């Protein structure tokens, strides 16, 4: 019986992790892309240059597909809490439920409502109102991020709650709940990550087309804008990540110990382990390549500052160290690679060769998916690092799960995997097809005369690039 419930727990976690991992990449992209679209339309209104409105139309089609996939994968999330984590839902509902309801109400409806105007309304509502709709969609995606990250942060650093007779967390101070200690750091870190993810995708698409057609004005503009974004935001993100790490050290030291691979305490200066193989059984990092005292310098701003290790924690309170250790390194490595690409682009710009440096463009193409990988790695670091708790220090994951039987969860997990890969695989394929088409001088928009919808993906004729290429040839 114990074994069966353990299996159900593992399967429930696998299922939740799988569905949320699929979900997270679409909002991460659409948050950044919504803001980018607002910037493009704003620049077009301010300068009147056709290249901006063409890029707006180009990316709008991609945004529509990504947004629709975010919506359908998001519906699943709002029910997964109950199906798989019913005890958690019962206990945290009074605190987290209202915040999630706010997310649905304000952000989701704002996005979905104005999206219709944004997609189809340019001819119906005029430029000013259309720009307003674009801004509202961008603001809506940020509201989404605000509320959902507040929920997530409360699970990491809970405060402002009481516990009632039924064992539920109940709200005592909403301000303290919403603005819990890790929330500002996590919000900034995640929104910057979304911007970086989008900049990398836009940059990769621009670079891809520059490699084929160096003079394409659309490809030039998007590449240049993306590289500016990268060069500005990548350093900010590293600073934000550092601040977030210090905040985590204060509130969730076990997570930082796992990230650093610090099984032992270091009373006079902890080393920074660059690489190694964490061995939980032996509580050591094998083949560690390390820089003495650097970890203390980063985390405590002093070479000899003492740092506690996992040996100060009870074994049953350890997060899974190797997962956290590695996902953290993947995230950090990609962050520095982004910084490198941004600096390289600055150097190319100074030299006046931004559009004439094929290796820079190839590197930008290669880095296209890096944002998604970094977002997933960062998310794994923070969520797995919170284990073995769902509400850190208060509610264990093992005590959060629904009374499920393993076969039921296993069957639904298989169904989710099959459907998600088939469905979202197709969606990604369609996005890649749109991206493979070079931005044109007169980018076809979502034209009237075709099936019109308020939201969701656009019909094929509206986005079939060949239809508009053929007459030119």
């Amino acid at each position, binding site marked *: 019986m114990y074994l069966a419930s353990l299996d159900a727990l593992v399967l429930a976690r696998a299922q939740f992790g799988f569905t949320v991992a699929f979900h997270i990449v679409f909002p991460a992209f659409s948050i950044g892309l919504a803001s980018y679209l607002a910037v493009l339309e704003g620049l077009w209104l301010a300068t009147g240059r056709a290249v901006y409105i063409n890029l707006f139309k180009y990316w709008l089609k991609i945004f529509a597909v990504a947004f629709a996939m975010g919506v359908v994968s998001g519906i699943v999330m709002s029910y997964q809490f109950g199906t798989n984590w019913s005890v958690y839902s019962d206990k945290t509902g009074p605190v987290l439920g209202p915040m999630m309801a706010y997310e649905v109400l304000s952000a989701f409806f704002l996005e979905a409502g104005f999206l219709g105007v944004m997609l189809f309304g340019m001819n119906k509502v005029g430029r000013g109102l259309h720009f307003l709709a674009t801004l509202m969609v961008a603001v809506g995606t940020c509201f989404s991020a605000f509320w959902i990250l507040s929920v997530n942060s409360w699970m990491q650093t809970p405060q402002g709650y009481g516990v009632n007779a039924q064992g539920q967390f109940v709200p005592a101070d909403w301000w303290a709940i919403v603005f819990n200690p890790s929330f500002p750091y996590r919000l900034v870190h995640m929104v910057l990550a979304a911007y970086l993810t989008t900049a990398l995708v836009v940059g990769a698409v621009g670079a891809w087309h520059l490699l084929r057609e160096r003079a394409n004005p659309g490809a030039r503009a998007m590449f240049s804008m993306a590289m500016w974004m990268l060069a500005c935001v990548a350093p900010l993100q590293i600073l934000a990540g550092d601040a977030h790490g210090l905040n985590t050290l204060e509130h969730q030291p076990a997570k930082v110990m796992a990230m650093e691979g610090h099984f032992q305490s270091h009373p006079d200066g902890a080393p920074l382990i660059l690489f190694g193989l964490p061995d939980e059984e032996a509580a050591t990092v094998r083949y560690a390549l390390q820089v003495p005292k650097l970890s203390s310098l980063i985390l405590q701003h002093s070479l000899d500052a003492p740092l506690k290790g996992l040996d100060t924690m009870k074994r049953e309170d350890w997060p899974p160290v190797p997962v956290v250790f590695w996902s953290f390194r993947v995230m950090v490595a990609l962050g520095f690679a982004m910084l490198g690409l941004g600096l390289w682009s600055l150097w190319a710009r100074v030299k006046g060769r931004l559009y004439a440096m094929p290796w820079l463009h190839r590197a930008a193409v290669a880095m296209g998916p890096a944002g998604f990988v970094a977002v997933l790695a960062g998310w794994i670091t923070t969520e797995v690092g919170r284990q073995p708790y769902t509400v850190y220090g208060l509610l264990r994951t093992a005590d959060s799960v629904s*009374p499920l039987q393993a076969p039921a969860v296993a069957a639904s997990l298989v169904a989710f995997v099959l459907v998600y890969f088939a469905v979202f695989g197709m969606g990604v394929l369609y996005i890649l097809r749109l991206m493979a088409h070079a931005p044109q001088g007169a980018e076809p928009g979502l034209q009237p005369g075709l099936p019109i919808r308020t939201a969701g993906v656009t019909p094929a004729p509206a986005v079939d690039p060949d239809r508009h290429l053929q007459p030119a040839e």
Partner: protein
Amino acid sequence: MPVDLGLSLDLSVVWAFVIAFAVFAYVVMDGFDLGVGLLFPGLRPGEERDTAMNSIAPVWDGNETWLILGGGGLFAAFPLAYAIILPALYAPIIAMLLGLIFRGVAFEFRWRDPRHRAAWDVAFTGGSLVAALAQGITLGALLQGIAVAGRGYGGGWWDWLTPFSLLTGVSLVVGYALLGATWLVMRTEGTTRIHARRMAFRLGVATVTCIGLVSAATPFLDATYAGRWFAWPSVLLTAQVPLLVVVGAALFFRALARDADRAPFLLALGLFALSYIGLGISIFPDIVPGRVTIWEAASPPFSQIFMLVGASVLIPVILAYTAYAYWVFRGKVGTEGYH
């Protein structure tokens, strides 16, 4: 369980109505577009199907957001109910979610992938059927009673599957198909409309039969249901519901026979509303029927108030622009969309 003073009581009732409203909005709005999916095999490929698709294209995903609001609202206002009901209905709820995903994307991909359009049309109908059937089964399983142990679900994995839940499942499929058919009567012209009207007659008969069967079976599920329906003097009020169903059905068939455009759809919505009120009479004030009342499942007043502030501003806004969207896309659709 102690009930807080009047404040908690009122808030819980308010929230029960808000969630009931969201669910009803979902049922009628996604109902007709799921119904159009169900009717797809009865429409000819090409013009008829394209027209049918265009008629729901602008609104379908706005409709689905009400489902998220219903689920999210339940989690926030009645977390205990959310925690009991969702594991109890695990299989049908997962099936519904997967069906909705399939249908949602099939909807889009059939335009992009004309070579496999026939396959996507099958996926569209299949997804709609699974989602509708799962929702109906969910309703039946909820009505027939859920085993509760402590603060969680205490039953087995196939408890939801009974003759009664299958009856409600099939009934909802039939009812959605009726909404879809009358929607097409209202929104299309030519052969699509002729086909839809023919289907609407048969589906009307089937829907009224289903309403009768479910209504007849429900009071026998639980003595409290019977009590809520037949107790004197409230029976004077509750008896109006089946009477109105009879009147509504008669008007519906007359409107269809007169070849009216809008009346059949509106009257079909009326039948749904009456059935929904009937369900409310059976269930209220329970939220897990027969086991947990809304007050027992309620989150504290401080939680409910916090949400209510936002909901009372945002839900009217949402309703306003939903109405606006429907108004913009009113009238008959062609195969080519709007000009």
